């Protein structure tokens, strides 16, 4: 696979939810791709299906039809167990509400995804310390999430997302719960992951400031994608 090949490739993806007898179509025949090393922002009105699309790419939801290929592998045909293993190795998650384990320290939270890999305790320690250094939280690693601010918790979550060195990073409104100052810090961090570590990032956001950091912005409305570039929105 060359550098120019897309890392994410969606073909004719459709998805709807059932509410009782009612069928709610969410995504309608979506086809698009994301290049390796890309930083993409997904925008659109509430309920337009942004989270749904992100979840399909990240392998935590199932398509009704179509295919989702990540790094050349079609994840729509995988079993639940294979998909779990695949996620552990290939996807880093950043959530709006951080989703840290409250009973684990910052260090232990970052270490958590590594416990599913076979690497030694010493190697784990190196990885975790490095990841915490990237998010500039080495001095808080023994603190529990409850002892950290929202911005700090999100930084721990980012360290957890990158510690396994995943193929893609997905972020669903990573600044949605933060004040402007913290949001900016988080966006600088995410931007840095893309620039310095060359991570492919797919980010859902409502915040135009956050979206500005992305290379590409795509709008989702009523289940259909139309593309716009940052310069167009300015």
């Amino acid at each position, binding site marked *: 696979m060359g550098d120019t090949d897309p890392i994410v490739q969606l073909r004719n993806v459709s998805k709807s939810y059932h509410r009782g007898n009612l069928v709610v179509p969410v995504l309608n025949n979506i086809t698009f791709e994301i290049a390796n090393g890309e930083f993409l922002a997904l925008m659109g009105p509430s309920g337009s299906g942004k989270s749904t699309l992100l979840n399909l790419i990240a392998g*935590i939801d199932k398509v009704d039809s179509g295919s989702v290929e990540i790094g050349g592998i079609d994840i729509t045909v995988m079993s639940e167990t294979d998909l779990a293993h695949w996620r552990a190795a290939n996807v880093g998650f950043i959530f709006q509400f951080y989703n840290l384990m409250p009973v684990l320290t910052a260090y232990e939270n970052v270490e958590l995804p590594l416990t*599913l890999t076979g690497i030694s305790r010493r190697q784990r320690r190196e990885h975790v310390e490095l990841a915490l250094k990237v998010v500039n939280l080495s001095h808080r690693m023994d603190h529990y999430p409850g002892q950290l601010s929202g911005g700090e918790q999100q930084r721990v979550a980012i360290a957890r997302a990158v510690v396994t060195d995943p193929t893609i990073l997905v972020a669903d409104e990573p600044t949605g719960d933060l004040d402007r100052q913290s949001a900016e810090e988080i966006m600088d961090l995410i931007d840095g992951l893309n620039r310095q570590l060359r991570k492919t990032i797919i980010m859902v956001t409502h915040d135009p400031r956050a979206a500005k950091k992305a290379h590409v912005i795509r709008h989702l409305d009523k289940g259909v994608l139309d593309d716009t570039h940052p310069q167009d929105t300015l």
Partner: protein
Amino acid sequence: MIHILKILFRNTFRHKLRTGLTVLGICIAVLAFGLLRTVITTWYMGVEASSANRLWTRNAISLMFSLPIAYQEKIRQVEGVKFVSHASWFGGIYIDEKNFFAQFAVEPATYMEAYSEYYIPPEQKAALLRDRKGAVAGRKLAARYGWKIGDVITLKGTIYPGTWEFVLRAISRGTRRDADETVFSFHWDYLNETLKKTAPARADQVGAFIVVVKNPDTAADVASRIDKMFKNSLAETLTETEKAFVLGFISMSQAIITVIQLVSFAVIAIILAVVANTMSMTARERRSEHATLKTLGFGGFRIATLIFGESLVITMAGCALGIALTFPVAQVFGKVMGQYFPSFNVTGETIWLDFITSILVGLLAAVIPTWQAIRMPVAEGLRRIG
């Protein structure tokens, strides 16, 4: 896996009050279950203790009716019989009606031989046989009322009116753990001689004969031979093994035993509901945490370990506390209720039952929450609801 255990233990103590109350509930349930079981096992202990080479011959009509003493000699001559003793329920009151204990008028020489699993020091044995008013008490009974050898013990008769005086000549000790050491026995001769003067019609009668057979294997044959002999006589007999005889006693209380058994099952059912409720509350609260773990690639087995583990930690903590409390409480219970229960001992079997039941409750309580957590689609679990 060690990380899952770490999360599991810390999760257990997140809601200290809820966990504490659940543990307390299990502890009380285990305690109640243990005590109820002990009541039942104690009840049946008499059956276990009864010997296979002893037969009891009583009036065929009912235990309330007596048999003529003259039968003793006739039974002795039945093939397979080693020797014959007898015992009559006295039912006297010691100072106050609430001081209940079993009292028998017996033929001491043969009675002591028939019940050789009880030990009486030789000099006390001799003193008992010498004194017509002599009596023997079980060790526990003597301890309960502070009796010493030589004490005069006065009983007020109910079946046999009057005031009866006895001199304690011997204290017996059971050589087996399940021995009943709360029985009071005295010379039937003393009772009979008095009756001859006061109520001649009731003299020369005994409650039941204790027939010791030469070979336990022939006990059934001996029993039918005895009963056949007295067929169509004035007082027909019913002979059964001591085990059956004691069981007959117990079956009168069978209804109570059944109720106790039902209650102990109800206790288990209630505590299962309590633990299941705690676990489903817990799992519902941690829905998004479970979804997060699944997102990170944690599989069903690890999620199950998390929920089952917490359930087991809680139930086993309660179980351990409950078992630890069962012994002292049973001891107090045994002291207070000593007159009804000859030996109130918590058996190993009861502790095993406590243990196994608790494990089952812990496992069962986690089944539905685990199933729900595993089945929940990840994307769904991550959605914020309300």
